[in-house]
């Protein structure tokens, strides 16, 4: 695999509940440990990444902030993104005029897909070497904790949809530039997070197909989260099965069966996606240990 961390933008998506946020934060931690100025961004009024990094963002996290050395966080807000965009595109009296205009506010709110376009537009802006935001420093890498599969694809394909709908003009030009970045495999990496379970694997395959169809893009990496330890050899499992049905032995056998089923699903995932998945093991802990996950992930990332 070409180095995942050498991209400018890494978009992390996958089925709900598989640990996207944890994985996005762990990738961010790996990159920042390697001395890269790294931004982990999330969308849709969430501050989960900040939570995973044990950093409180009481103000909603809409301003860029450094949570750990070299590791930054922001929760992208479409309304703020719109104001920023107007200030960048127009002389300030004109921008102020529009920002205050009732008709413009209503139009912006009612235009289908505009919130999504503004969200992706801000993510794109964060990943620019020459930032439009006055005084903003560039990041070496921007990691996006994107919404789950269906919503994630909708957000990612918003620029293309807009470019198609608008034909010409500044919005169309801007949307085309954003889409070009998202679909350029040298700049943007798309990462699917899954668990080795039937539903999650099936959804990952659906995600791969949707990205091809709607974005003309390929998955760059697949991360399988929460793998159970493969403790028992087949011979040991056989011996356990021959024991009297005692509580501890039953528990061990159940764990073995879960691990075996996971291996089968992991095999199905790697065969069908053509990716040798990055693997993260389940942590028998009250809450995820992000540093340990970053250690495990870092060993697998060139």
């Amino acid at each position, binding site marked *: 695999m070409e180095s995942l961390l050498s991209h400018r933008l890494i978009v992390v998506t996958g*089925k709900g*509940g598989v640990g996207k946020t944890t994985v996005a934060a762990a990738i961010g931690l790996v990159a920042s440990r390697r001395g890269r100025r790294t931004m982990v961004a999330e969308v849709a009024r*969430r501050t989960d990444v900040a939570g995973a990094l044990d950093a409180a963002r009481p103000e909603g996290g809409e301003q860029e902030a450094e949570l750990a050395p070299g590791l930054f966080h922001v929760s992208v807000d479409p309304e703020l993104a719109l104001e920023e965009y107007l200030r960048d595109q127009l002389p300030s009296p004109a921008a102020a005029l529009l920002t205050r205009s009732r008709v413009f506010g209503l139009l912006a709110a009612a235009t289908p897909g505009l919130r999504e376009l503004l969200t992706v537009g801000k993510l794109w802006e964060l990943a620019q070497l020459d930032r439009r935001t006055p005084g903003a420093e560039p990041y070496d890498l921007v990691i996006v904790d994107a919404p789950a599969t269906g919503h994630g694809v909708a957000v990612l394909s918003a620029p293309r949809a807009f470019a198609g*709908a608008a034909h010409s003009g500044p919005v169309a030009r801007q949307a085309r530039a954003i889409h070009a970045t998202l679909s350029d495999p040298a700049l943007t990496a798309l990462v699917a997070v899954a668990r080795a379970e*039937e539903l999650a694997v099936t959804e990952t395959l659906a995600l791969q197909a949707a990205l091809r169809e709607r974005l003309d893009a390929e998955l760059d990496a697949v991360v399988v989260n929460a793998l159970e330890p493969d403790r028992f050899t087949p011979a040991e499992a056989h011996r356990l099965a021959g024991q009297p049905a005692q509580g501890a032995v039953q528990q061990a056998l159940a764990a073995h069966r879960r691990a075996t089923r996971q291996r089968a699903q992991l095999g199905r995932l790697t065969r069908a996606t053509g990716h040798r998945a990055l693997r993260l093991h389940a942590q028998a802990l009250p809450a995820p240990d992000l540093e340990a996950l970053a250690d495990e992930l870092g060993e697998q990332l060139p």
Partner: protein
Amino acid sequence: MNLAGKRVIIVAGSGGVGKTTTAAALALGLAARGQRVAVVTIDPARRLATALGLEELGNEPRRVEGIELDGELHAMQLDAKRTFDELIERLAPDERTRRDVLQNRIYRELSGAMTGSQEFTAVAKLYELYRDERYDVLVLDTPPSRNALDFLDAPDRLTGFLDGRAVQAILAPTGLAARVMGHGTGVAFSVLRRITGIDLLEDLAVFFRSLSGLLDGFRRRAAGVKALLGDPGTTFVLVTSPEREPVEEALFFHGRLQAAGMPFGGLVINRVHRAPAQDAAAARRELAGALGERLAAKVADALRDVEVLARRDAEAIERLRRELGVEDPVLVPLLEDDVHDLRGLALLQPHLLR
């Protein structure tokens, strides 16, 4: 849970906690108790979809065959785009409006890019089925949204989308549409044109103008949906796992339900680790003779993992009980395999209903 007298059961919770399975099992349980039930699923796993007969195309519930029930079980998988189109067709006052909207480039290109469209269409479908006399009870599986707000806000979005003020501002004789068409000259307008380009502006004006014929229908529909969500016959069932994020999501959603005055009907906690009956160290000593030191130590390791997770789960359950004020949440143990057939659902349903 006691869901007697409920006509609409909305199953909510964060992604990956077993919402679809819970919705399907609830529906089957109610059908087994003699009701005519329709379950609307959003994105079922393939094997569950097969079991429910959902592989046939169609955006209407179909009777589930292959199981003896006192009542009837119907199931459907929501097709957001089709539901949206059907809604336009139903609300359009005439053929021309219908065609104008459905063929509008903005509608076709961008309605799929709206992340809220699944929530929006799910409640629209729910409302339609509610008025269908073939069903006594509806069970709605909610979209795998990361944000519960999207769902509760759907009716408001339905009106907000075509809010009277927005449309007036755009469609009034001196509004945006007129200015676009008449190549208006106002300062704000020329700035707007500069930022969007004239093509997009014209298309938007056409889009809003063609939608204006649907306004009354949309408004009535949204009011109906909102009333339905707050009806005493409607209830929300929260589903979670004991993991940190889903628990936070469940607490958050519950707070929103209360704030909106919407009814909370019960809590289901899936994937609960049960504390092992035996302590890991004791098990190791006891099994060393029969299994050898090495294998006995591995069994003890496996047991220790379960102990930690069972403790974590017990704390999460206690927190949910306390903060949601639920005496007896439904606890579903961690199953070895996904529930993916009617037999599995039939085994699950007695846990959910009493």
